[in-house]
């Protein structure tokens, strides 16, 4: 039992960024002569080799499967066979939407140690200890895996930075068992454009969350955003309720606010997917009446205040 096996994620012919973060995560788990291998389970795995050849990767394992896109039955069977054949001490995958669809199944079928949404892990006296959040991220929980020779961890996106630099890893191939696929991919559907706003290019976003209470209050914050020169965004519950179009939703499952430099979150307590989707922003100002809100854990500045009073005061002060 040795080595780290990373199960790469890809979509529409491209390696997903979370995979490279795992390469960095794996470095701290190297013990002795441990090698870090990346498994490319894909219809044309060879096309992903270049993207996966980053510093810190010792080996790439190509696994050719008859599935162009994510297929839970096929990736699960291939990953299971690979883990059983190689017996790595640690297998890593991103805690992504695709992983939501098969990581726990892979763990249940192989019986290996398992934890998801892990943001830190280390060996203490030769025992792997992984840290994840609990009770809405208000506590940290350390878990271990007694008696488990192989441990599978689904690692939180953004917890590690992708490595800089490239490598020339050895390339091997692995033959996956043939399985019947019971879930079929039909097509991808681009998110609707909604209104004329493009959250991906907005540099200054003011977002509202559940704290606004009711739909009639959206207008107040729309006016505030206009006055401040910000683009109005929202958290998931506001878009789900139809108070703002889905295209205004930011966070992991909403639009990727990749250009955002200044983010004001009003009345957003901070579900984990929202935090994960916004933590890249350099200046986050969180305004919330609940001093214990999770959003304060990623914000640069925190304001505990009534968001309506604060909206009035900001309108007044910003002349």
């Amino acid at each position, binding site marked *: 039992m040795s080595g780290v096996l990373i199960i790469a994620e890809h979509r529409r012919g491209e390696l997903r960024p979370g995979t490279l973060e795992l390469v960095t995560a794996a470095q701290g788990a190297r013990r002795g002569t441990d090698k870090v291998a990346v498994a490319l389970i894909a219809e044309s795995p060879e096309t992903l080799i270049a993207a996966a050849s980053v510093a810190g990767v010792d080996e790439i394992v190509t696994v050719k499967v008859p599935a162009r896109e*994510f297929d839970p039955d096929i990736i699960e069977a291939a990953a299971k066979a690979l883990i059983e054949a190689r017996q790595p001490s640690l297998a890593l995958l991103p805690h992504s939407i695709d992983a*939501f*669809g098969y990581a726990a199944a892979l763990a*249940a079928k192989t019986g290996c140690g*398992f934890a998801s949404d892990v943001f830190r892990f280390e060996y203490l006296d030769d025992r792997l200890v992984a840290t994840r959040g609990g009770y809405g991220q208000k506590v940290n929980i350390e*878990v271990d895996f007694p008696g488990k020779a192989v441990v599978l961890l689904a690692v939180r996106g953004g917890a590690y930075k992708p490595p800089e630099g490239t490598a020339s890893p050895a390339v091997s191939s692995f033959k996956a068992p043939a399985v019947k696929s019971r879930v079929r991919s039909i097509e991808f559907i681009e998110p609707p454009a909604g209104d004329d706003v493009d959250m991906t290019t907005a*540099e200054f976003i003011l977002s509202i969350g559940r704290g606004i209470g009711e739909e009639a209050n959206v207008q107040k914050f729309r006016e505030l955003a206009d006055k401040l020169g910000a683009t109005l965004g929202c958290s998931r519950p506001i878009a789900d309720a139809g108070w703002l179009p889905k295209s205004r939703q930011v966070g992991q*499952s909403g*639009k990727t606010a990749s250009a955002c430099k200044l983010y004001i979150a009003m009345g957003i307590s901070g579900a984990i997917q929202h935090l994960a989707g916004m933590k890249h922003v350099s200046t986050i100002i969180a305004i919330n009446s609940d001093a214990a809100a999770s959003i304060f854990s990623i914000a640069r500045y925190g304001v505990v205040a009534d968001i309506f009073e604060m909206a009035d005061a900001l309108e007044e002060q910003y002349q």
Partner: protein
Amino acid sequence: MKILVAVKQVAALDEDFEIRGDGRDVEAEFLLRDLNEWDDFSLEEAMRIKEASSAIPVEVVVVSIGPEEADETLRKCLAKGADRAIRVWDDAIENSDPIAIARVIAAVARREAPELLFAGTQSSDHAFAATGIATAALLDWPHAAVLTQLTYTPGARTARFRRELEGGLLHEMETDLPAVLTIQLGINTPRYASLRAIKQAAAKPIDVLSLADLSVPASAVGEAGSLSRVRRMYVPEKGRAQMIEGSVEEQARRVVEIIREAAGGAA
């Protein structure tokens, strides 16, 4: 036609709380319990299928793994229209991880033999996003996670759905049945139970099963049946937010300064 909906009574922390003496969880008295938000959407999705089906009757059965206090959550589901409720408990289930819980739910699914098993995408307390999909693996059923749309007509041999990917991209897929599907927030708008329905639900029986009733050995649950074990729970160092104090006016003045500094040309 039957839909089994797995629900969890989740716990949120009270404003002030204390870690238990053994350092592995929060003292129970500081936990506020409720139906997991995701499960409210799964139940609603099942109710929609039931109410839209005229030719084929649809039975909606809710199941929860938990001690007696979980009855409150099951009654909430009965008040919203579930036909039956099952609760499984045994002291051996204490300290189970999501995979061990999945072994119990899988045993219930074998007994009930539904065409569809719904679970929430994740739970609001520990957010493993694992129980539903692990259950599918133990049953060897097809499965899919994070559904924001489902099209299924009772009697059909497949179901079509959309799962929501990162960045709002949707992936349309089709699955054979029986299947386990995990439901994302926003797939529908969960109903509120009427006062009358709440009263009626109080009188409905909840079928309480033990591990023995399901032929699940004690070694399959608890720490022995889990793939991870909680070592320690602790309150992390406060986040890095620099708190802006003072009156609302003073706070607003400082926020405006920060906006002007940070936004520069952007604002």
